[in-house]
């Protein structure tokens, strides 16, 4: 690993998604070690970041601060780092030569199932999930690195074709019937469309514009 990172109070707050005030509070409460120096010159380390994230995670599981403090006091920095964000996978325990030979040996060869079932879960977190059952090391790796056989995910293919002429409005029409109305079809993505019967009031128009902006934001793949 490259050299240890150093963070200002604000950086640490951003990266752990807490306010600077919360960090000061945790330090005062003994949940976080003191940065050594006080004031603007204070800097924090990866150890602080890992500890802070673990605290947040345990808090989300509704553990009282006193309990968190007790749990944390039993753990060293390395253990905490392993719990919070395990590093890249540990090197596999078989060599490249063993691997090739077990594959070439074909199905039924003793070595082969071991490779298929092999896990990239770092051993540290496997062991550590036990003493601290609350800390979920979420989204751990797949057993084997997944491959990107095709760069793009398959797009949704099923698509409901709208009738060329949208259905006429049903009976409940608050609008004055005298007005000629017209359906607008707005493509939100290539697969999702919004149908709007116009004209709308100014107020409604504004809301629809917001709706479209929100929908595009929700559905967007490209920047909008």
């Amino acid at each position, binding site marked *: 690993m490259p050299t240890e*990172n150093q963070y200002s109070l604000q950086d640490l707050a951003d990266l752990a998604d807490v306010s600077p005030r919360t960090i000061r509070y945790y330090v005062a409460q003994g949940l976080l070690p003191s940065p050594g120096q006080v004031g603007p010159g204070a800097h924090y380390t990866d150890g602080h970041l890992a500890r802070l994230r673990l605290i947040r995670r345990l808090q989300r599981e509704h553990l009282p601060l006193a309990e968190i403090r007790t749990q944390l006091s039993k753990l060293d920095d390395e253990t905490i780092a392993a719990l919070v*964000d395990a590093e890249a996978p540990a090197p596999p325990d078989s060599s490249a030569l063993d*691997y090739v030979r077990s594959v070439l040996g074909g199905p039924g060869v003793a070595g082969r199932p071991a490779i298929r079932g092999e896990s990239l879960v770092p051993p540290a977190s496997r062991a550590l999930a036990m003493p601290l059952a609350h800390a979920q090391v979420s*989204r751990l790796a797949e057993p084997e690195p997944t*491959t990107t056989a095709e760069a793009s995910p398959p797009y949704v293919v099923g698509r409901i074709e709208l009738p060329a002429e949208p259905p006429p409005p049903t009976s409940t029409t608050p609008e004055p019937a005298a007005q000629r109305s017209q359906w607008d079809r707005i493509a939100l993505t290539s697969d999702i469309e919004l149908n709007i019967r116009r004209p709308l009031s100014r107020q409604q128009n504004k809301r629809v514009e917001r709706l479209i902006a929100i929908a595009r934001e929700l559905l967007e793949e*490209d*920047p909008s």
Partner: protein
Amino acid sequence: MTFTARSDRHYIRSIYRSNRFVLAEIDAPPARRERARPPVHLAFVIDRSGSMAGDKIRLAKLAVEESLARLHDDDRFAIVVYDEVIDVVFPSTRATPDARRSALARLGEIDARGSTNLGEGWLRGCEQVALELSAEGVNRTLLLTDGLANVGITDRDELARHAAGLRARGVSTTTFGVGEDFDEVLLQAMADAGGGHFYYIANAAAIRDYVTSEVGETLEIVARGVTLQVTGPDGIEVESLSPYPTQAFGGRTVVTLGDLVAEQRLQVVLRLNFPYGEIGRETGALFSLSDRDDVLDGAPVKLGWEYADDRTNDLQARDRDVDRAVARIFAARARQEAIGRNRSGDYQGAKEALSSVARRIRDYAGRDAQLREIVAELDLESDQMAAPMAELSRKQAFFASANMARMRTYDGKATKGPQTGSR
């Protein structure tokens, strides 16, 4: 070396989940002095099935000859040829002048015949490399084929999984597809999973260029096993749009970029999806690089975003360089999809894949000339894709778009910085 990261936009929406894009750019350090480079270990695996007869096999042999001439005495190499039978023509040996001479003499006796056990031929090559891994240098199998795997292991996913398994154990894989009868999806998947490169060689005359250029790249590698790590609050989801394997470990996302050659400029596009947040609150993520031998020394980059109301979001400035990189990636992905649809006879779907991405880019292109050019190209291609295409053109288009997504040159070479191709 330099390492930078920037986002397309600074503000994020407060009550919707915003996507923001990050462009990370790495300029690899210059080459070490030639004598000082660590020894490499290469296996050349060559398809000798019947279809390779004539120019292809002759030129493949020449390519091996020229590649061997670039190795030093401390390097190692092996040569494997395969049809349905695998023949280790020259087992792994130090590249002394004597060894090179006798290897070429034996290679000279090989002619083309039989069918294609691509899987085992490739694995036998990997076995030779695995016999003695170079601790500091590159260990790589170069597979050259013009056909489909039709004997032995033929399943794409299985072969790609083995390529990943071998990469994790230090042996990478590069693939070369010649002509129009091979499976580029397989060869691309093996190279991606295997941490090497895929090259499409339309014309046998270019075999030598591509093989020697790839060998040249392996000799120029200055950083092995490079990963980009993103650390941020738990709610931010990170995804790499550039086609690199990505894994999440708790609050850290690791994107495996592979090896970097001297002065290579690599661009990686990430999509970050943010949770809701109160207006005015700031959030951030840390981007850092690491590599197996700790040779990259770029400082981590911290990017900050701020939750803001919709008006501020709508009016905010955009970083056009990031927009362009994002547009290129989406265009490349759409092309790959369109080619697949064109091949399966879904011409309308192929056209739509391109034109829908063109529409979306047009929405934010504004007056930006480069973005508009990307849109114009997509529109043009969407018409071509709407009709049956020659297999050769499809392969060419697949290769060009795969290279675009990986920020390599149109013919698959590493892009060298600074500023190559981005302005």
